[in-house]
C-alpha cells in the first residue's frame, strides 16, 4: 500500500544554509493493508521526519514515497485533499490539538465541511457516534464536552475517531501514547491493534521498545537516519543481530528482571552507513556478516 523508495531528507544548517544535515538516509520499507509497523528510534533518529514526509508535511529530498503505486509528491490541491482522505496522522500531544475555547467535538466539524458537505446532519451525527464507539468511548460521555473535561486518553482517542471518519487506509501514529498514563495508554494501543481488523494500516512511531513490541507485526529500528535492523517483530526482538539493537534492548527497564549494574556496559557501537543484508528470511540487518 505505502512504499518508501530509498528516501532521504537533508536539512540546511549553518548561518547561511551552507551546510547540510542528513536527517534521513536511504530509507526503504513498505506498509501493507491491515498491517501495524513500528518505527523505533531514539531522539534524532529521523523517525518523526519520516512520518512527516509520508504526511507531506516535509518535502522529500531524494527518493520517492508511493501510495497505492502513485507518487505522492506530485499531488497538488484537490489531489492532495483526496490523499488525506486515505492517510491521516495523529501526534504526540493531544492537549495542544484542541482549541480550549471550543467543545472538543469541533474537530469533527472541519472534516464535515471539507470532505462531507452534502451529508445530512442526522446521518453525520450517526457517523460520529459510530466512529466514537469504534475507539471505545461512550458518545454520551465525551460529545459536547470541553477539552479540559476529558482525559488525555479520551482526547487522543477522539483524534483517532476523527481520522476514522474519513475511512482512512493508513494512520501515521507519531508517539501517540507518550503523554498518556500507563493505565490509559494500553487502551489506545489495544485500539490500534483492533483497528487493523478493519483493514487499517498503521505506522506506529515510538521510542519505547516495549510498546512497539506489543502492537506491531513488523519492526524497523532506525539510527541516525538509516535503518539498522528490520523484520518481523518476533525476529527483531527475539534475535537482535545488530549491536545497536542489542544495546537498546539491554537498556530497556523490565519488570521482572533487574539490570546487572556492575556488568560492563556495552560500548556505543561505532556508526557507519552499511547496506542491509538479509540475515534470515525477512530479517534485514545493516552490515551483517554471517
Amino acid at each position: 500500500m505505502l512504499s518508501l523508495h530509498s528516501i532521504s531528507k537533508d536539512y540546511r544548517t549553518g548561518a547561511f544554509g551552507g551546510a547540510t544535515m542528513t536527517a534521513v538516509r536511504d530509507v526503504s520499507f513498505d506498509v501493507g493493508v491491515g498491517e501495524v509497523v513500528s518505527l523505533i528510534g531514539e531522539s534524532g533518529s529521523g523517525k518523526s521526519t519520516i512520518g512527516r514526509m509520508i504526511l507531506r508535511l516535509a518535502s522529500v529530498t531524494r527518493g520517492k514515497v508511493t501510495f497505492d503505486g502513485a507518487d505522492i509528491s506530485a499531488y497538488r490541491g484537490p489531489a492532495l485533499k483526496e490523499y488525506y482522505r486515505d492517510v491521516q496522522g495523529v501526534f504526540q500531544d493531544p492537549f495542544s490539538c484542541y482549541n480550549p475555547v471550543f467543545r472538543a467535538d469541533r474537530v469533527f466539524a472541519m472534516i464535515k465541511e471539507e470532505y462531507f458537505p452534502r451529508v445530512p446532519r442526522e446521518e453525520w451525527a450517526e457517523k460520529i457516534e459510530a466512529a466514537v464507539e469504534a475507539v471505545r468511548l461512550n458518545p454520551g460521555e465525551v460529545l459536547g464536552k470541553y477539552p479540559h473535561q476529558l482525559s488525555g486518553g479520551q482526547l487522543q482517542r477522539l483524534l483517532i475517531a476523527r481520522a476514522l471518519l474519513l475511512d482512512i487506509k493508513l494512520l501515521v501514529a507519531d508517539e501517540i501514547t507518550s503523554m498518556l498514563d500507563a493505565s490509559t495508554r494500553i487502551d489506545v494501543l489495544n485500539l490500534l491493534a483492533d483497528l487493523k481488523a478493519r483493514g487499517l494500516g498503521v505506522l506506529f512511531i515510538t521510542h519505547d521498545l516495549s510498546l512497539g513490541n506489543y502492537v506491531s507485526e513488523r519492526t524497523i529500528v532506525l539510527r541516525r537516519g538509516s535503518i539498522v535492523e528490520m523484520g518481523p517483530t518476533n525476529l527483531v526482538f527475539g534475535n537482535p543481530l545488530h549491536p545497536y539493537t542489542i544495546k537498546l534492548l539491554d537498556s530497556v527497564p523490565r519488570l521482572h528482571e533487574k539490570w546487572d549494574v556492575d556488568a560492563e556496559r556495552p560500548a556505543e557501537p561505532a556508526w557507519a552507513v552499511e547496506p542491509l543484508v538479509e540475515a534470515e528470511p525477512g530479517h534485514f540487518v545493516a552490515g551483517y556478516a554471517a
Partner: protein
Amino acid sequence: MALRVSDLTVHYRTLRGAVKALDGVTFEVGDGEILGLAGESGSGKSTLGKSLIRMDGRMRHVGGTVELDGKELPIGDDGAMNRFRYKEVSLIPQYAMSALNPTRKIGKMVADLLDSHGVRYKSVEEELGRRLDLVELPAEVLGKYPIELSGGMKQRMVMVISTLLDPSLLIADEVTSALDVSTQKAVATTLAGFRNRGFVKSMIFITHDISLTHQIADTIMVMYAGKLAEKAPADTVVRAPRHPYTKALINSLPEVGVQYAERKLAGIPGSPPSLLNPPAGCRFRDRCPLAFDKCGEQPPAVEVAPGHLVACCKA
C-alpha cells in the same frame, strides 16, 4: 531514619477552593535507602517531592510534619527552609537542559551557587574534579557554556552539582523521562552509584515508570489521588502487589516479549477523582473491581507484612 514524614497534607489554592493534592501521607525513608515514588499524573507524587524542598506560591502546608535526621524541616516557611536547601535536601530538576544558566560559564555558575549557600568554591574544587571524573566529564566543561554540552552531558553535570555538598536527602523528580533509553539507563545507574558511594544518604526517585524505578529503588511507594496506596520492597510491589490499583497498574504495562496477539493487556477503566472535592472513603473505589460497601470509609494504611503497607480493606 533519615526522613520521617507524618500525616503530610498539602493543598493547592485555586479560585474554586483547595485542591487536596496531598492528603495525610505518612512514610519513612531509611539511611542509604532509595525510595521509588510511582504514580500517574495527579497522584501527588511531584507535590510530595516539591513540598520537601520548596513549595511554590500556590501550595499551602495544611498539616503534618517532616523530620530529617531528627530535625524538623520548616517546610511551610520558605525563608527558614533556605538553611536546609542544597546542603541537607537537594533536588535534581526534570529538565537539565534548562536548569543551567545559559549566560554563565558552568564553573562560574557553580561558584555563584556555592557562594549563595555560604560555601567557598576553593574548598570543594578538588572534590568537584573527582566527581566530574566519576561521571566521565572532562574538567574543561567548567570553562564552557551550557550550550556547548550535549543533553546527556548537561544531565550528568546537573547531577554532580546537585549532590556536591553531600546532601542527606536527594529528590530526583522525573529525571529520566525526557531521555533516550540508553541514556536513561546510564543516568539511573549513576544515581544508584552516588548512593553507594555515600554522596547522598537517601534518595526519593520520582517517576511514572514502575519498571524503571524497580531497577534502582529499594522500596517503591505507589500513590493514587493524593494518598498512599501501597509501599513495599521493590520486588514485592512488582511480584506480589496487594492493592487492587497496584495490581491493575502492573498488569497494564507492556513488556518486551509481550505481544498483543498472544496476551492482551487491559487498562484501568475510568479516571481518578477530582481532588477539589474528593469523595469520602477510598479514592480508587470508582475504578476498583473489588469495591464494596465498606470502601465508603477511608482505609488506613495497614502493615500486612514487615515493611509492606497497603491502604485497602480487601488486601
